[in-house]
């Protein structure tokens, strides 16, 4: 008996002999089940890709990590909670690969495209500022330090943010 698997394309299934389908109601049901689109938990799917990318990143497999982050940005635009760290992490990959200009461009996009994600924005700006500073591009770095101070210099911020702001003030 012809077997219709879940992975069979509709085209292949349609080429099944009609006689065989008619002869077996069970086979027809199996065909329909195979055609059904499975429900996908998109946040979970994005998280899974992100976790794999982070693992690759921390294992210094930068190309694999970048591919994972880019996939999230391409396929999961409806999941900004995963896109924001993916974009920042893609900037990290480019920085680790020595592509400073590209990494700064990506960090900058975090601040513009995911402006409400404070923690991601703070990390992106801080990393951009430190990279520029360490590269001797102090005027460009000061722009990001100033942004950090302007946005995050609030008494209610937690200790880690206040430390970053204090350091940023010294380099503004």
């Amino acid at each position: 008996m012809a077997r219709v698997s879940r992975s069979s394309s509709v085209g292949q299934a349609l080429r099944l002999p009609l006689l065989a389908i008619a002869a077996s109601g069970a086979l027809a049901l199996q065909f329909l089940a195979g055609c059904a689109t499975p429900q996908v938990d998109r946040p979970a799917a994005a998280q899974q890709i992100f976790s794999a990318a982070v693992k690759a990143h921390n294992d210094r497999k930068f190309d694999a990590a970048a591919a994972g982050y880019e996939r999230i940005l391409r396929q999961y635009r409806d999941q900004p909670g995963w896109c924001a760290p993916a974009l920042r992490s893609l900037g990290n990959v480019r920085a680790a690969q020595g592509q400073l200009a590209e990494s700064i461009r990506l960090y900058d996009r975090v601040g513009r495209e995911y402006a409400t994600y404070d923690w991601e924005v703070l990390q992106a700006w801080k990393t951009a500022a430190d990279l520029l500073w360490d590269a001797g591009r102090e005027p460009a770095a000061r722009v990001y330090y100033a942004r950090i101070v302007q946005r995050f210099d609030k008494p209610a911020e937690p200790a880690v943010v206040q430390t970053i702001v204090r350091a940023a003030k010294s380099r503004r």
Partner: protein
Amino acid sequence: MECGDWSPLSQPRLVAANGKAPASWRTPHRRALVLTSVFCLLTSTAFARINVVTLPDRDTVQLTIYNSADLTLVKETRHLTFRKGLNKLEFSWANTLIDPTSVEFRALTHADAVEVLDVSFPPRVTNTLEWRINSEVAGDVVCEIRYFTSGISWSADYVAEANKAEKLMTLAGHVRVNNNSGEDYENAQIRLVVGVIRLVEEIAVLAQGAGTKLPMSAMRRDKNDMRVEALGGFGYKVKEAEERPREIVKEGMSEYFLYTVEGRDTIPTGWSKRLPSFRANDVPVTSYYKFEKEQWDDAVIRFYRFANDKESQLGNEPLPDGDVKAFRIVSGDSLLNFVGATSVKYIPIGEQVDLELGADQDVMIKPTLMDWRKQDIRFDEWGNVVGWTVKEQWQFELQNSKDIDVVLDIRRNFDGDWDLKSAAKYEQVDAQKVKFILPLAPRAKQTFTYELRTRYGTSVTK
């Protein structure tokens, strides 16, 4: 000037000379902290990772679990060997549910000589921060790192062992700690908080990377409020607890109650562990059997009643809600018979609790309507019935097939204008309910009756 950075992993490890962390470091459940040792020149922008150091264990780990908010405060201390000058310490929260915005570092010794200058985010790794710490001293410094994580929860459960006569029982409490935080916690002191925490956002969402749309400051306001409560009395309480012999310390903290589980335990992520909480012997217990047609139909339901007070060898702390399994000793060699299981709500100090343990076939209560009459019928001037009285004669057969005395609590519900006559003693519970409390000897049968008169229409007198 030299600078060093550390990774307080739970086991001493060596750093490769090239500064690349060995693969064994990157196990998924030990990635909260990465400590490497490097020398660097402050005047140089490039760090040369050239040194090899022995890394310290966590000296202490303390988990304070706020169940109601899926929130745990983690506080760990380590002995770090600082170099004079700039030092670096990395902290990674990758693949954990740690809230990175809550991470704090402070020196417990030489506090005036150790200062966190900056926090940065090294691009070569993801979800990692790096403290840049200036130390005026070279040598050992005891440091504390604390943060919030989600994914750790606890639940209470109890085992009640009644004696053969069901007059006394041993009550043992346990807590089960579940760790799904992504981080292993070794030799951790575990503190459990009973109470409700107000949080506007779940930390797990943020820690997982699916950040919240709320600005940090908006989220943090409530977290800080909670943190003040969590940490405000913390030092004092911990010190007090540490000075005592090892025991379960339970303390009231305004609207919260803090349980400190005895000793230390290792709870890897993905695991749960059941820990003893308390054990009270000779707790007076009243075993009784309830019958109420409207609630349980024909079943007779067994209850154990006890009080959470000093007279009952309890009352040291409120008992958190949890599942209860009850057993009864049925032979001289302490063979236990399962009596039933139920769950209890939070039991404040001084409160009485009734454990509903399910139907018991050994006690039978059978009500029978023996007679029914409509009488005292009244008519209006046209001959229509306008008032009457219904008289019911009920007989109850009671049977105790057990080898111990039992107490029966039989409840009857009546509507309207009624009165009751019975040779058996009863109490009125409310306007529509009475209860008969009847002791029954072992292997005994007994009957009792009552007559119920209910008035209708113009016969109603009240």
